């Protein structure tokens, strides 16, 4: 099996799986007052401190959640509700390339809660500029509830200069939330230095467990809870903590961050070979997103493990199926619940045509990727593309 879909989820690191399995055998509700409870609580707090250290945040800023989707919803809805209540602010400033966990939360607030949305323009790589953000804020700074811009895009891998964008928000006292699901453990990232007020991360994209994540929420920013109950996690996220998942997450984050520089360099080299190899075999294949050697804020301008390409005349669905049949796993971008692929909203926001969006594939490398994976892909891709081209876009159009 050649697994080239690490941006969807990456295998758990053995250390994280082991720590989690060990904790599964221990009893204890982290809110209980007796010894078992205290033991569980200790695991949670040690994990919180370790994750905070790895992210450059303070432990008191971290809220454990069920993953990226919940963290994004909590940040977007929670901060919007809170700021609307305190200051009657209604505007959300959002990048159109966000993950659906942000996009759909924003659309929902617009439809049901009277939120007004300012969609930021992006360049053809999907990057948001400081000037665009400033212009959008200045339209009516006192009405802005929240800005949400992702650190790195999950489809095309484009990295935003979050530190510079946060500096735009700070003088206006406007909180900036960033979805850093794809960035943690891959890009240089220091929460405090970046100046963000809220940051989403999730375990299963970096070698930690599924269904476990964090919302870093500055203690200066309040968020209205999505669910009410026992008042755990600063009263923002009620519910008995999943101690084994929290422990697994902590080990995953630490290992990912510790090995980051080395892994990023290795993945970038593999990815470059993959992209060069594909373009040598299929000269009209187009790399979408930021160039592989682009630089943002002194770091990579594109996620090192990301290769997102359009194959003119092919349909992404057909390519995916043909590759799957040959043991190569990748992705076409966003899939809705029925598995019907829609042309990627990210590519469309970048100004790509529908055909180009439909004819694209994302290959994403991660900690278990090898040269052999790239070899395998390069070996089969010419024939697969040729076949898909023959099938053409016939299914999609007349």
């Amino acid at each position, binding site marked *: 099996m050649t697994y080239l879909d690490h941006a969807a989820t990456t295998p758990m690191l053995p250390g994280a799986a082991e720590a989690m399995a060990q904790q599964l055998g221990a009893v204890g509700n982290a809110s209980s007052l007796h010894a078992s409870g205290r033991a569980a609580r200790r695991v949670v707090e040690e994990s919180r401190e370790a994750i905070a250290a790895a992210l450059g945040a303070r432990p008191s800023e971290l809220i454990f959640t069920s993953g990226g989707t919940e963290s994004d919803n909590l940040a977007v809805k929670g901060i919007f509700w809170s700021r609307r209540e305190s200051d009657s602010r209604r505007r959300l400033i959002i990048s159109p390339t966000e993950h659906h966990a942000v996009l759909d939360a924003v659309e929902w607030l617009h439809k049901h809660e009277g939120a007004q949305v300012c969609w930021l323009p992006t360049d053809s790589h999907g990057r948001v500029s400081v000037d665009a953000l400033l212009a959008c804020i200045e339209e009516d700074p006192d009405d802005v509830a929240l800005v949400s811009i992702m650190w790195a895009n999950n489809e095309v891998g484009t990295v935003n200069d979050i530190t510079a964008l946060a500096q735009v928000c700070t003088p206006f006292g406007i909180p900036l939330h960033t979805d850093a699901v794809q960035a943690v453990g891959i890009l240089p990232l220091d929460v405090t230095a970046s100046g963000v007020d809220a940051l989403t991360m999730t375990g299963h994209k970096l070698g930690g467990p599924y269904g476990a994540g964090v919302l870093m929420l500055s203690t200066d920013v309040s968020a209205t809870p999505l669910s009410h109950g026992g008042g755990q996690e600063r009263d923002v996220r009620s519910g008995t903590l999943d101690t084994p998942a929290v422990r697994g997450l902590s080990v995953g984050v630490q290992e990912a961050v510790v090995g980051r520089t080395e892994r990023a360099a290795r993945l970038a080299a593999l990815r470059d070979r993959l992209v060069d190899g594909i373009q040598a075999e299929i000269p009209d294949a187009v790399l979408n997103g930021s160039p592989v050697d682009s630089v943002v804020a002194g770091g990579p301008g594109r996620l090192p493990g990301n290769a997102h390409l359009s194959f003119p005349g092919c349909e992404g669905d057909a390519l995916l199926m*043909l590759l799957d*049949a040959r043991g190569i796993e990748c992705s076409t971008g966003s899939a809705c619940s*029925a598995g*019907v692929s829609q042309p990627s909203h990210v590519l469309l926001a970048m100004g790509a045509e529908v055909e180009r969006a439909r004819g694209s594939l994302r290959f994403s490398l991660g900690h278990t990727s090898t040269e052999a994976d790239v070899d395998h892909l390069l070996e089969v891709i010419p024939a697969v593309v040729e076949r898909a081209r023959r099938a053409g876009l*016939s299914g999609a159009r*007349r």
Partner: protein
Amino acid sequence: MNVIAAMSGGVDSAVASALMVEAGHAVTGIHLALASTPDASRIGSRGCCTVADANDARRVADVLDIPFYVWNLADRFRADVVDDFVAEYAAGRTPNPCVRCNERIKFAAVLDRALALGFDAVVTGHHARLDAGVLRRSVDVGKDQSYVLATLTDRQLGLAVFPLGEMTKDQVRQEAARRGLLVADKPDSHDICFIADGDTRGFLGKHLGARIGDVIDDQTGHVVGQHHGAHGFTVGQRRGLSLGVPAADGKPRYVLSVSVADNTVRVGPGEALEIGFIRTGAPVWHTDVAVGEPLDCIVQLRAHGMTSPATVTPYEHRTEIALHRGQRGIAAGQTAVFYGGADADVVLGAARIETADRVLTDTSPR
């Protein structure tokens, strides 16, 4: 063989796929997403392409341990089936969207794509037999679907596999249950899949607009009522006429003809629906015929309609059908399917009805 199985999420395609897997073929399950708007595929409608149906199909594929994908053919389906359906009604004809879907989607768009991608054939759960290229009715005559497959060309049929033809529907359900497939007792879908609430007239009204017109008594020429658009009526229809003036003889009245051009519906007694002579458009033949040589056969004129002995005369791009027994409620746009063979279950050919006439020509069997 390396085949695509079209998996709707229903019991028939589930068992058809299972039989192919068990026969040793390499099967890839495909669910066709045909609803145009994402919302339409989200509502828990009775249609054939809801998210729940896609999930049912996916679960069957899991159990069979075969790859499974969703193919989005919504654009083609809308253009080739839904828009055609509306246009046909607008032109005063009564289309059969399942025939059209088989001709244009399942055994055209899907088949072409499957072949281009390296597959050998398309498998469906239709109830029909296909032996050595010969299309026959299912052994379960009540569930037989050869009618909606009859206009496929020999090339299309040569690339199709219908594994269920020798089974009754009950047997199909038993086979599903025996394999632990949860769709075993899923109800059959009956309605037009893209009209989720079953309200065809409401659907047409929305697409074609309501326009008040007259209902005319065919015998007296008098206006006996009003309607909201002639396109909402089908020849042979009796219900929903809401006529102000009762018939002189007190007998029920039926729609005899529909003219969308002048937005009128003509009604009359049941006897007046009796049709004896039909002209069709270009036929598809699965047997050797000679132009101008009459052929005795059994003809079926509606998906669930009665059959009648008939004499068909093939011409270059049309046929003429003389029915030996009058038939009621024959509408232009429906398909005439010709059956022959010892058991009158072999599909000889098919063509679309263009005009239907009351004259019973030569009723003597030849």
